[in-house]
């Protein structure tokens, strides 16, 4: 017992502010397409998920489909594409964006400043799960923001859905959504849930999450880093102006 107490005291508090962004130089964040493009098409050919498009002579990157492999930047000869350290990526949509401020306020009034989260795996590779788990570790300490993971969808305000929708989990997705009381929010976590294109198409994959239930926030990443998830959560909580 004394040894346990000693270890706890020697370790001290390790919790960090997530906005302190100590990103490693090699870390692959948002891809900026702001350089001169020669339309050589090399980046399209190497992109495994088809996340790149040429719109009016400019490359546009669909970050929801991007798996952040960085191959496009490697093959780009003209310098049109560039790796940035920005990992604060998340897109609001659906009821949160369209309905404007009044509904947003109403939702937040109902949910208050605390949010109960339920995780739902509909065909993930386990990487997103580990990053969701990491949110509860002492360094990120999710609970300090008034957020916590709950054991049942019946206790939840927000569903964090990971993975491509597989044939064998479609029913679980629909039933879990049904079991979550309204008002409810859905976050599509990671490239699989947000785009459904990570692996391609097969007899076992049935697409992305918003083909089955309405999604309010899309979080890019393969998997999204814990900081990205915290950023997305705070966006939901309207904590970032």
């Amino acid at each position: 017992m004394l040894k346990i107490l000693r270890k706890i005291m020697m370790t001290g508090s390790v919790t960090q502010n997530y906005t302190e962004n100590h990103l490693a130089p090699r870390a692959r964040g948002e891809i900026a397409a702001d350089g001169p493009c020669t339309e050589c098409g090399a980046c399209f050919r190497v992109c495994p998920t088809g996340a790149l498009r040429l719109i009016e002579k400019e490359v546009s990157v669909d970050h929801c489909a991007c798996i952040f492999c960085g191959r496009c930047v490697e093959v780009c000869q003209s310098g049109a594409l560039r790796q940035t350290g920005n990992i604060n990526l998340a897109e609001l949509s659906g009821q949160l964006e369209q309905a404007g401020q009044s509904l947003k306020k109403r939702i937040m009034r109902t949910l208050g400043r605390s949010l109960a989260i339920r995780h739902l795996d509909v065909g993930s590779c386990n990487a997103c799960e580990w990053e969701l788990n990491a949110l509860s570790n002492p360094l990120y300490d999710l609970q300090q923001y008034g957020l916590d993971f709950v054991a049942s969808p019946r206790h939840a305000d927000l569903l964090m859905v990971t993975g491509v929708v597989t044939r064998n989990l479609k029913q679980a997705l629909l039933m879990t959504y049904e079991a979550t009381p309204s008002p409810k929010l859905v976050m599509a976590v990671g490239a699989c849930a947000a785009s459904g294109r990570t692996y391609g198409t097969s007899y076992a994959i049935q697409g992305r999450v918003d083909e089955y239930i309405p999604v309010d926030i899309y979080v890019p990443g393969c998997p999204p880093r814990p900081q990205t998830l915290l950023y997305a959560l705070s966006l939901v909580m309207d904590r970032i102006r």
Partner: protein
Amino acid sequence: MIKNYTVSAKNLRAAANACYSKSKHGLLAMFANDERQIHGKFAIYCLFDGRNPEEMLSVKALVDDQEAPEYPSLTPIIPAAAWFEREIHDLFGLTALENKDLRPLVLHENWPQGLYPMRKDFAVEAVVPEAHKDFPLAHAHGEGVFEVPVGPIHAGIIEPGHFRFSQAGETTFRLDAKLFFTHRGIEKIVEGQTIEQALFSAERICGACSVSHALSFCQTVESISKAIVPERANVIRVIVAELERLYNHIGDVGNLCAGLGFSVGTSHGARLKEHLMRLNDAVTGNRFLRGMIIPGGVRYDLSGGLIEEIYKTLKRTESDFREVVGLLEENDQFLDRVNTTGILPFQAAKELGVVGVAARASGVDYDLRRDKPYSGYAWITCNVPFYRSGDVAARLWVRVDETLESIRIVRQMLERIVLTQTDLAVEIPPLEPYKAGIGWSESARGGNIHWLMTGKDNTIYRYFVRSASYANWPALPVAVPGNIIPDFPLINKSFELCYACLDR
């Protein structure tokens, strides 16, 4: 070196039995391949490991579906074949005669009868109607016996799987699992893709085994093309493979504490793991070490500053981890929960072909890094810890010992890396069609065996993945009965089976 034997379907059992008796660790993998486009027949492949390190035995049985889509079951002589045969039955519609349990495994009740998705004449984009069949699970009857269904959606942040416990009071006496919920059909998707495209899917079979799967995949390609991976690349491959083992093992030691409510251990484990994940990010640009391993070598170099950072992080982690383990070793309440809980007997581990930590905790002294060295593992002595008790405690102590051994291996490799100045990768030449290769690597959970056959124009004809979790899942229903149901999470965590690896 792979020794190939081709037999007719009716001689499969005799041929497999001969190889089985000659092999060190029994049946590694068994799968079917639709080779009707090549020679008009289906093929059943059985892979065994040979006695000496380089040797692999591959038995190929030809099944003519026009005559009869069936072959003699291996399960009566090799229990490890049971799930493989169920999978072949589901995906190829080939029946293992005399296998009494050919219940569906991969395809659930929503899949229509008589459609076999892995056959070549099944188009990958085919629209399959929703069926409403039964999905029979093993259960028990009797006075006072009741069932506890759990899942597929669990209370924590874990992957989906359905468990059916048959209970007499608090004691579980039968367990059956319905798995393959996250089955994505990756093996079908990569058919027809180029090696470069397929690498991304192989790396994403499982998050926590990304390096191991990428490594096994690349080794299949390298063995087919006979490409020689440069020395420096092999050193870096070993380093990232060990970094993967480290963050997994340390995280798993912490998670095991969560299985019995010892939150101090959980917190420390999660803290140490987070520091290692950040190191991963620094080394490869991805917290799961993705994007480092490519066919022919590695993508990024390790140089001065990074090497220093790895040394520093490992030093801090080692002393910190030893202290955390000290908290467990001297804690009687903790030991009371883990000792003699969830025993997997040696015989069961051996016959079911269990691999990795679970095998080494049950007295099976087997580790691919030492017994079938790949990459740079041939250059080092790899001490393989093993225990005989087969309980939760043994699996925990194997992980603890392996963590410290991993740190030692990384240090050895860091010393070597400064001495090797070679390229980071070699070009893979165009691959000859219809050639097969095997790749293997020891992940944190055990051996991941990949088999790949090339098609025309540098594409993939068939890809099969036998993950460590595939070999270990059938052992869980052996270890759980006789324990109380509150110990199930603990036993499950001590095996640390991955659903995504199994389901593919």
